[in-house]
């Protein structure tokens, strides 16, 4: 078995209300910073896992992403997997 590190970046779809980003943007505007026209907050999930191969590790990540890490009604998810440096 090989060791892998993976990341999942979960973003709200553009059409979905994302209140944290909106609050940050409004806070910036209150301080006079009006150049930030959009702020969106997502989630960055780090995972360490074991698998036979890079391909197998990617499949495992895709599986848990679809089952659990993001909800495709409102979010998108981008996954990156790398073999862990020894």
């Amino acid at each position: 078995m090989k060791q892998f590190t993976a990341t999942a970046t979960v973003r709200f779809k553009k059409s979905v209300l994302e209140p944290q980003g909106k609050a940050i943007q409004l806070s910036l505007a209150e301080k006079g910073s009006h150049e930030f026209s959009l702020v969106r907050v997502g989630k960055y999930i780090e995972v360490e896992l074991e698998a036979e191969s890079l391909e197998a590790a990617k499949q495992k990540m895709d599986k848990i992403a679809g089952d659990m890490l993001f909800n495709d009604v409102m979010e998108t998810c981008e996954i990156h997997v790398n073999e862990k440096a020894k």
Partner: protein
Amino acid sequence: MKAGVLTFPGSNCDHDLVTALQKEYKADVELLWHTAPFETNHDIYFVPGGFSYGDYLRTGALAAQSKSMDSLRQAAAKGKPIIGICNGFQILCEAKLLPGALIRNTNLQHICEWSGLAGDGDWKGAFPAGYALPISHGEGNFICSDDELEDIKQNGQALLRYTNNPNGAMFDIAGLASKNKRVIGLMPHPERALAEQPDARVSHARYGRLFFEKIFALAAV
């Protein structure tokens, strides 16, 4: 009547439901803890409100992965009636037993008030004018894809709709049924509306009863 009430770490309306079912309806109620599968021999199941798993990841997301939910899926496959209230609605959506998802209220606030409701779809005309139930949630804003919404409308699945949409929910959806109408999720809390209320405007009809009568009719089928 034998009722199962699923309980997760962070559920906080489970005992309200148990008390309501036992005291008001003399039901035989079993609390079902999330770590164990259960035998699907109850007449009806409830997924209660609260903040399961502290709302971590997404509301209802981690509860939807529980062992007890595997059993609940089996119960759903058998056509047993399943009612999710508030966080229970969110859990049923995350478990894909209901379409769509519930996101933050558009005003970004937790809303706790009596909310006007009307029956629609299969429940059109089921409740009197001025019908209301208490709501208390931060994430009750129902969303789904355009295709799903079209199906919901066509099949009469939007059983309860807000008369004065408090949270931004699509099509004013407060309560939603699955395609076969056996799984129902709703944001309002009928279990909190069984006692006489001090406010005369809402006390006269004990509105929660009308909801439970509709639900128990499902269990009898």
